[in-house]
């Protein structure tokens, strides 16, 4: 067993875990935080995406032991986040979900996209969202919701450049 201390949604959590336990299973089974969904468990579907030290992270591709000393935010911890509130509203208004299984990962990824891109267009959102799989919606309304939320976002004073993906 490995002793870990994780700042989980702002609360310090101390536990003893098996080294092979994934962060996703730690969140769901040990901490009861079931917003983080597990689809493929090998990094392809994106349903389990959480934030680790502010970086979007596949919680199925991270061991709980590796999260020791890190700060982890799940969808539950972003209830009061203004950007997440904006995204939730637009997901609702654009009807951006059907079964909802992919939605937690979509919301976390969407928030990460809007933090890195100012008013992203359809193409940018589609490229950035390509790591999140939805088997119901056909993505159109998810992309619409994220683009619309981006339009409503308060403009950052000096947005970071959208990195190399802008070069075609």
């Amino acid at each position: 067993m490995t002793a870990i201390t994780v700042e989980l949604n702002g609360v310090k959590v101390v536990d003893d875990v098996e080294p092979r336990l994934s962060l996703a299973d730690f969140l769901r089974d040990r901490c009861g935080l079931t917003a983080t969904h597990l689809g493929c468990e090998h990094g392809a579907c994106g349903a389990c995406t959480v934030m680790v030290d502010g970086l979007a992270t596949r919680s199925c591709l991270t061991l709980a032991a590796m999260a020791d000393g890190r700060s982890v935010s799940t969808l539950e911890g972003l209830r009061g986040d203004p950007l997440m509130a904006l995204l939730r509203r637009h997901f609702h208004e654009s009807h951006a979900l059907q079964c909802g299984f992919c939605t937690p990962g979509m919301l976390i990824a969407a928030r990460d996209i809007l933090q890195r891109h100012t008013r992203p267009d359809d193409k940018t959102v589609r490229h950035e969202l390509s790591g999140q799989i939805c088997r119901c919606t056909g993505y159109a309304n998810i992309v619409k919701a994220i683009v619309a939320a981006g339009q409503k976002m308060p403009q950052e004073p000096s947005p970071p450049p959208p990195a190399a993906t802008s070069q075609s």
Partner: protein
Amino acid sequence: MKPAPFEYIRPKSVAEASVALGRRGATTAAIAGGQSLIPMLGLRVALIDLLVDISRLDDLKAVTETPDGVWLGSLTTHSQIEDGKTPDVFGGLMRRVAGQISYRAVRNHGTIGGSVALADPAADWPCCLIALDATVRVVGRSGVSVQRVADFIHDSYATTLTTGDIIMGFDIPAPKAALRWGFAKVARKSGAFAHSIAVVTAAGKDGPATVVLGAAGPRPRPMAATANQLAVPATTEEQLRAAIATDLDANFEGLDAYQKRMHTANILRAARDMRTQ
């Protein structure tokens, strides 16, 4: 998708990690980002007794501009390169390559050292680093060794790494003149492993060209005839196609007609990409 049980340690130094990796009678693996290793453990295609977490070793995180080029510590993540947080003396080539690897959540943790250590035939960094003539510095029980990445990777998923070895990082020489480059990749969906990766570079207007093709065989290979042809002024597409055909036959075995067409088209795309610069 649950890995078989293993022991986990997080050594405080590279030396300590090297000793742990060499533990007698144990199958060991080093983990950095884990973005390839963890799925392999889950699928149980990799079975280990001991996992050595090297992800917090500061000695592997150094990123500096050197007199001759750039040093990238092995723990440099794809997203650090994508976001321009590493020195870019390659005219944006490395940023472009980084931004096309897998997905952002994977790029946030996946490392350049891990990618080269795994040596997946369809990985992006081996191809790019060979095109840039980078060297890899490895520390192990027999001391430090420096090898060209082209020699370090000798087969699919096979490198010269031996038990206890750890990649420190990469020395990437700065091009002698402003780098012109082209990069093209064929993948079924963005973020998926590629079926073809082509990197084409040339230093300055008249500098010699380099062409490296990945995902076409066990390891990326330089395409010498294509590079020579590219350096000839007013080269026609027909001449380039003939040179590519020669190189494909010389460097790769068992490509079918479709694969040859695909690799040819991909190299031509990369070459066009470079010529517009």
